[in-house]
């Protein structure tokens, strides 16, 4: 009777020893090549051992549970959150409450908090945009930040050279994003998923390297400073009022985004995307123009990134190429994956959680990226659908005959 427990302990011990060995040179020894001293950090080895012991037990338990769930013929069990979301009497008041909270937020909290919220909401917008490309159309885009950069630089440069205001550039930024999306999308249409990831990654890097090196155009690594915040009918607002104003703009933009994407998912295009994600060949056989559908996904996804970029430039008042590295794309991808690919509520929760948590847990800040890496892997292994899984619209047969066939 004790055998399974003993067995588990043995397995955990093996894992602990293995990880202690594996992490030994990098976790324990730290050499200082200048003063020529060695720092032996044996404590780290102990922590690794203890951590690996327990985590491996959890890992095996989770794997077993996952297998069991799969064996149970994938019963269509909705999680609690999904059920709550489907109940109209709950979801409508909740949305209203959330809206009220969003409206009073800048008046309840300090300007610093409002600024953090603005950047979190920018990520929500980016996440929702990337969700079109990755979550709906199933095209892994690792260069999404390039469109964000296009939007940000569009505002900064157009403002610098031609004095154009925020409201003029906002649609221009979105449009430029879409143009770049098509420019990138067109040559890579024929590629399969994994090649697409690398090419988009390359595209993102190309844009960043060009911004860094083409000094006459983008002012290079020094970046562009003094980008103005949006104006309200030429009123002379204080800095805090401007921040609050920008906050409302981004809240409205997020609501607009949610509205548009919600409509898109139910439209012909949205269904075509989902079909494309599931099976390209079958999708083409059903008469869907693959090239057009993919291009639309790229263009629409990039539009939101472009607009997000404009807001970002207005918020930070200073941009340089260092803000647009590949890791920024990975963070956005992480918000989409953790939240739930294809699910709007999921992506919003994912983005808010992943961006706000590290902001408030300051000491945790240095572990931010390593956690994101772990989140991506763990999510894929245990919950590929994300925190709040997208509920696929299904048609259910409820007649007796079909039940007979199945049983």
């Amino acid at each position, binding site marked *: 009777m004790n055998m399974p427990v003993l067995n588990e302990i043995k397995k955990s011990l093996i894992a602990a020893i*293995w990880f202690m*060995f*594996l*992490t030994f*040179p*990098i*976790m324990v*020894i*730290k*050499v200082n*090549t*200048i003063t*020529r001293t*060695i720092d032996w950090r044996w404590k*780290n080895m102990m922590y690794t051992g203890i951590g690996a012991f327990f985590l491996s037990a959890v890992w095996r338990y989770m*794997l077993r549970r*996952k297998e069991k769930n799969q064996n149970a013929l994938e019963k269509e069990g909705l999680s609690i959150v999904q059920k709550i979301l489907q109940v109209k009497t709950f979801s409508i008041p909740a949305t209203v409450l959330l809206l009220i909270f969003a409206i009073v937020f800048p008046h309840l909290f300090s300007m610093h908090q409002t600024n953090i919220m603005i950047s979190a909401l920018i990520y929500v917008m980016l996440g929702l945009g990337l969700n079109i490309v*990755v979550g709906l159309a199933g095209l*892994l885009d*690792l260069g999404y930040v390039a469109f964000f950069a296009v939007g940000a630089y569009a505002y900064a440069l157009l403002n610098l050279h031609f004095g154009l205001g925020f409201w003029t550039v906002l649609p221009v930024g979105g449009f430029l994003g879409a143009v770049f999306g098509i420019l990138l999308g067109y*040559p*890579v249409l*024929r*590629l399969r*998923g*994994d*090649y697409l*990831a*690398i*090419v988009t*990654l*390359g*595209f993102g*890097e*190309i844009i960043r*390297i*060009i911004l860094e*090196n083409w000094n006459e155009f983008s002012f290079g690594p020094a970046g562009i400073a003094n980008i103005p915040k949006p104006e309200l009918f030429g009123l002379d607002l204080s800095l805090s009022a401007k921040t609050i104003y920008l906050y409302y703009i981004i809240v409205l933009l997020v609501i607009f985004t949610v509205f548009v994407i919600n409509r898109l998912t139910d439209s012909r295009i949205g269904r075509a995307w989902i079909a494309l994600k599931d099976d390209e*060949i*079958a999708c083409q056989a059903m008469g869907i123009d693959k090239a057009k559908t993919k291009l639309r996904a790229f263009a629409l996804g990039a539009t939101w990134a472009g607009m997000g970029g404009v807001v970002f430039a207005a918020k930070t008042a200073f941009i340089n190429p260092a803000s647009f590295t*590949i*890791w920024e794309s*990975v963070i956005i*991808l*992480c918000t989409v*994956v953790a939240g739930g690919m294809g699910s709007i509520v999921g992506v919003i929760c994912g983005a808010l959680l992943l961006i706000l948590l590290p902001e408030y847990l300051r000491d945790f800040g*240095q*572990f931010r*990226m*390593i956690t*994101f*890496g*772990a*989140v*991506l*892997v763990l*999510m*894929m*292994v245990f919950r*590929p659908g994300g925190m709040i899984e997208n509920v696929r619209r299904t048609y259910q047969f409820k007649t007796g005959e079909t039940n007979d066939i199945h049983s």
Partner: protein
Amino acid sequence: MNPEYLTALILGGLTRGSIYALIALGYTMVYGIIQLINFAHGEIYMIGAFTGLIVSTVLTMHGMPGFGVVFFAAAAAIIYACCYGYTLEKIAYKPLRHAPRLSVLISAIGMSLFFQNYVLLAQTSNFLPFPGLIPDFEFWKPYSHVMSATELVIIVTTAIVMVLLTLLIKFTRIGKAMRATSQDKIMASLLGINVNQIISITFIVGSATAAIGGLLIASHTGQINAYMGFLVGIKAFVAAVLGGIGSIPGAVLGAFVLGLSESVFTGYVSSDYEDVFAFLILVLILIFRPSGILGRDQTQKV
């Protein structure tokens, strides 16, 4: 055109190409077997270089002579890289064997991010000076103005690794099993091949070549940091695609083509846009000849 300048560029290109080849092999072997772009491969290479640096520094401080240091540092780097490659596959890819490709790819990116930040947190984010492990051989002194001893060692080592790898794949039981697995996993397992084991071995072999590449490039450039793996990894992937992914001679050819053309490009055109050049090659090859130089055309079947 100055012939000496061109010679220098070509030799530099060959060195570069050798490093790309060592890393591209890992990509192409893994891709050949499980059709996955192992994004974390560049990080294995970085971990190999870090292990080499740590072990060699510790040994040097304890007064071990030069040759022993090189031997033990290289051995430790290769062994650890293999262990990391093995663990990586077990954690991030094995549970996803039957999952959609998008999931595996995202998991691979997560692993890459994880390893990079793991080294960043446990060690440092700064550049560390890497000791010149390779001595200036006496017999090479007269030629060292043309090509340094390190470059010579890089090219020779790469050639040796290539030959060994070809022998492994062509003439051993493991090699045969690898080829069988890459053709048809189900059929291979029916014929008594332990497919999971073969996949693990592929990761281990790929990681070993990556670690050798990491050590060589680190002693060539003289410095390492936690980000070193990412860009080189991507470029090695470009090389693998250029040659035809899944094909081992293709990876080597692609690596040398990329290394040489990159070297000539930086020498004559611009060094600022060096990375842009590599990515442009990737985009062009994928548009005009997605199967690469030596790859076969693949049609998608339902």
